[in-house]
């Protein structure tokens, strides 16, 4: 007969060191916890931001294509023909078309502002269906309608309103565009799929023509198409918009740009994950250090246990179990901490909270691996100790 310890006894004996020196156990587990928390939080936050992008894209749709003039062969700014909007609308798979056209006028808060302080705000003439097609929303006030588009009324993009120092729209809020006073009737919320609108001052097409000598050439045409035929539409757009010079037309899909931005931040998350892994490794070294000291200090206990009949294997198991417990505690704490950080950050950003289960499982597996590796040497050392030597240590 050979006495085997039951799993419960292994855990109980492995926990002796943690129970008798709780502060040390806490601190070395903390090292592991910080590493794991960093890794889980990085994965969690980047997953949550990915989920937020998916949510945004599914709300905004990925079937928005924009057409804008590029450059001529000679490198000059090209322009879209006057009839390009109508031509694009004739493509069967295109469901809706809207456009903005750049107005050559500067935007100021009042007549007293020096001419050079343009704040980088661009004036545009906008079609009244722009909001629906770009997925833009108003933060306050109203959008242009068939009545207001004929009068000097303007809707400001979110950044434009901020730069001009305008908090809310109203009949007595006015800005000066190209020397003409325009009433601010609305302010937009940031537009995810058309960020150029954020720093724009948008007025009606007829108003721009009447007061600011607008040439009526569209500078961006927004189209919504049947999702399944998006690539066909994309191929046709340039030639349709400007049949004489299709090479002078740029076609883009704004949702691609958002996804690309996401991919960039994912690459950055990879780097942060590496930093977390280093922290975890340092935590592992901390656990190994604690275990080595623990074995040195507890030589009399090891000697006693050998006298009580513990085999070398049982001593090794005891210290390996202690190391595993220590890092498992740290790992559990780290996983909770990482999930809490993710939840807090996502809540702050109003993102959906996503902590991938594989990250949690991976975190726990990593701690167990670290614990096993960190405990291997101290446990072997403890097992090799001769019982008489261990007992003689005062």
């Amino acid at each position, binding site marked *: *007969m*050979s*006495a*085997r*310890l*039951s799993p*419960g*006894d292994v855990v109980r*004996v492995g926990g*002796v060191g943690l*129970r*008798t020196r709780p502060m040390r156990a806490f601190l070395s587990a903390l090292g592991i916890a910080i590493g794991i928390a960093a890794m889980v939080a990085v994965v969690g936050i980047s997953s949550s931001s990915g989920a937020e992008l998916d949510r945004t894209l599914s709300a905004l749709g990925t079937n928005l294509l924009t057409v804008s003039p590029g450059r001529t062969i000679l490198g000059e700014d090209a322009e879209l023909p006057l009839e390009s909007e109508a031509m694009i609308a004739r493509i069967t798979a295109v469901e809706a078309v809207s456009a903005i056209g750049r107005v050559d006028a500067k935007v100021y808060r009042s007549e007293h502002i020096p001419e050079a302080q343009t704040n980088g705000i661009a004036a545009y003439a906008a079609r009244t269906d722009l909001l629906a097609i770009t997925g833009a929303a108003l933060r306050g006030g109203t959008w242009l309608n068939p009545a207001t588009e004929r009068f000097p009324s303007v809707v400001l993009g979110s950044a434009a309103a901020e730069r001009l120092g305008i908090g809310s729209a109203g009949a007595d809020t006015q800005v000066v565009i190209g020397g003409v006073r325009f009433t601010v009737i609305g302010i937009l919320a940031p537009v995810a799929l058309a960020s150029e609108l954020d720093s724009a001052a948008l007025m009606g097409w007829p108003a721009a023509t009447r007061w600011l000598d607008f040439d009526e050439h569209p500078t961006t045409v927004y189209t919504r198409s049947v999702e399944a035929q998006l690539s066909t539409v994309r191929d046709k757009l340039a030639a349709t918009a400007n049949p004489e010079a299709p090479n002078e037309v740029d076609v883009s899909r704004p949702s691609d740009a958002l996804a690309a931005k996401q991919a960039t931040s994912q690459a950055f998350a990879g780097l942060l994950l590496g930093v977390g892994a280093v922290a975890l490794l340092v935590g592992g070294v901390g656990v190994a250090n604690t275990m080595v000291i623990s074995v040195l200090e507890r030589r*009399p*206990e090891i*000697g*006693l*246990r*050998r*006298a*009580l*009949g*513990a*085999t*070398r*294997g*049982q001593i090794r198991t005891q210290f390996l179990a202690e190391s595993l417990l220590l890092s498992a505690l740290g790992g559990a704490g780290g996983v909770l901490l990482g999930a809490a950080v993710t939840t807090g950050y996502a809540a702050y950003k109003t993102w959906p909270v996503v902590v991938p289960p594989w990250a949690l499982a991976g975190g726990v597996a990593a701690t167990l691996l670290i614990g096993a590796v960190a405990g291997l040497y101290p446990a072997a050392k403890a097992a090799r100790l*001769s*019982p*008489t030597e261990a*007992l003689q240590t*005062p």
Partner: protein
Amino acid sequence: MILLEKVSKLYGGSVTALDSVTTHIERGELAAIVGPSGSGKSTMLNIVGTLDRPTSGTVRIDGQDVARLSDRRLSELRATRIGFVFQQFHLAAGTSALDNVADGLLYTGMRRPERRSKAAEALERVGLAHRVGHDPHELSGGEKQRVAIARAVAGRPPLLLADEPTGALDSQSGAGVMALLRDLHAGGTTVVVITHDREIADSLPRQIRMRDGRIVEDTAAVLR
């Protein structure tokens, strides 16, 4: 019970701790191994307790040749056949007397409830039934040593080895501990006490006196 035959122990190849010792302790004896420090009596304890192996010679404990046992078999022998009592008690701090005693049975293969019930029984046997839940630091030196004795005998091993069991105690507590060892002997346990104290040694039925790694006198041999 214990059979040593021409047992020598050398440390580092030059220091001779035991020099060809031959002795025989019968089952049911109560014997003292006595000698000044450096006489080799601690080495004797280690070898008899199978904590150390001799450089040469034969050691038989409870009929088993120690040299032929693996680490597992030796551990098993210690777990089930030998109880140890040390001068420094070696009790775990922050652990109740009951759990300290129960821990002595950890490596015997008993389940925890059984270990605890045997531990309670052993504490009762050493007269500490009222101290079961106390921490070692709440106990007097004599009580600590009695807890350590309870731990050694909880599994009812046939052999009890006590290394200076009264060394850290005042004379009154020491007398109590010696009385307890005599009781255990009366109950059938073979008890070997290692001591430098001649008075204690002389109070036991048999004395094995040691000096410089040799047995210089054995009262059993005289009687025979």
